[in-house]
């Protein structure tokens, strides 16, 4: 899948052009600069999938003020770089989360709050919640706590910023590479009742083709 300029690194054709004109260093510097800028302006869509939604307002308002670090909330997934899944996910929510995640533009990151997405948490024996979220969508940062304090959420932001700055391999790249693996897992747990992937050509859905 083409990542384009908006991927984790500058795209290959641009890299070739730089190399042809003997400017590898410029390319490296530019890549670093892009990563730095990216780490300082994280737009967040906070999907309150569970209890953790209660710690979102304190994190984003004046007491803890995540905006100091360039982290700011937005309303729609299409404008967002980061989706926060705050807490356990019911099967019904997972369907919507996958849909929301696939609508986001690359680069896209996922942060989970609380113990529940990690290994089931309090609801480990509940018949309606997901136990291991990273089987279904790639998780970049997981913050533990029940609920994590706003400090812990900010720690998560700091960790994510560090990862972006260092140009580490992000979850969305894994998702693109192992698309089939994730889709299989999703189908297994959601029982086939799952929306077509967002890359689907919706206008020609009946002829069943990918765009």
């Amino acid at each position, binding site marked *: 899948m083409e990542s384009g300029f908006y991927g984790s690194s500058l795209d290959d054709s641009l890299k070739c052009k730089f190399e042809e004109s003997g400017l590898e260093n410029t390319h490296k510097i530019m890549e670093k600069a892009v990563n730095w800028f990216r780490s300082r302006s994280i737009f967040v869509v906070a999907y309150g999938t569970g209890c953790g939604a209660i710690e979102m307002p304190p994190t984003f308002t004046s007491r803890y003020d995540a905006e100091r670090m360039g982290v700011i909330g937005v309303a729609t997934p299409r404008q967002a770089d980061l989706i926060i899944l705050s807490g356990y996910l019911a099967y*019904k929510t997972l369907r919507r989360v996958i849909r929301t995640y696939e609508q986001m533009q690359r680069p896209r990151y996922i942060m989970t709050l609380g113990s529940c997405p990690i290994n*089931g948490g309090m609801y480990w024996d509940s018949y309606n919640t997901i136990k*291991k979220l990273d089987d279904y969508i790639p998780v970049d940062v997981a913050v533990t706590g029940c609920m994590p304090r706003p400090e812990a959420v900010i720690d998560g932001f700091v960790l994510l910023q560090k990862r972006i700055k260092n140009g580490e391999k992000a979850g969305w790249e894994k998702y693109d590479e192992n698309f089939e693996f994730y889709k299989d897992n999703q189908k297994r747990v959601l029982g086939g009742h799952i929306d077509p992937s967002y890359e689907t050509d919706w206008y020609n859905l009946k002829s069943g083709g990918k765009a």
Partner: protein
Amino acid sequence: MDLASKLERLSLELVQKQDYLYKVTVNLERLESLLLSFLNEFGYITLDSINCRDDLEDGFFTITYCLQTKKRDHIVMVQTKIQRENASLPTMHTIWPQAEIMEREMHEMFGVDFPGHPTLIDFALEYWDNMPPLRRDFDTLEYVNSMNPFRKQRGDALDAKEEMKKKREAKKAAKLKAEKEAQTKAALEAQNNPSDEVKDEE
């Protein structure tokens, strides 16, 4: 209390459970007429909730209607029992609109049928094809294990009771060994032939 005498005329008993809580038990045939007379004659106009309890061992569901008067200063529980198999109840949504959603939930969670109910659709679950989940014979842990794997890193966990037993036995064995060693030593000192004794021990 006034209500007690009124119910006595219907040959029903009013039991006081707590300071503000009373209970009437009635059989299913008389339930609907009793609820109507609670609403129209006794002035219990509020239906607070409908609760359902699964008594698996006895084979029935216990349904509790909680009613309140205009003053809202006490609660009366009207309780009835219905068969677990092909459970069915008269719907109350024409009298109390909020009963619609409570009955929809009960239908989904317990599989109780409400003939004449307009919207017996999904309430909280989506594409659910198993047994109604709040029935007590539905094993949620089994369902979870069939659907979701847990993390495998915890495989090195030990059973503490087994470990305790092992340690106790090891201690006992060590004690025995020490005793035997002491005996051997004593024996050694008595006889002057050590090598055979040690071999026997082993």
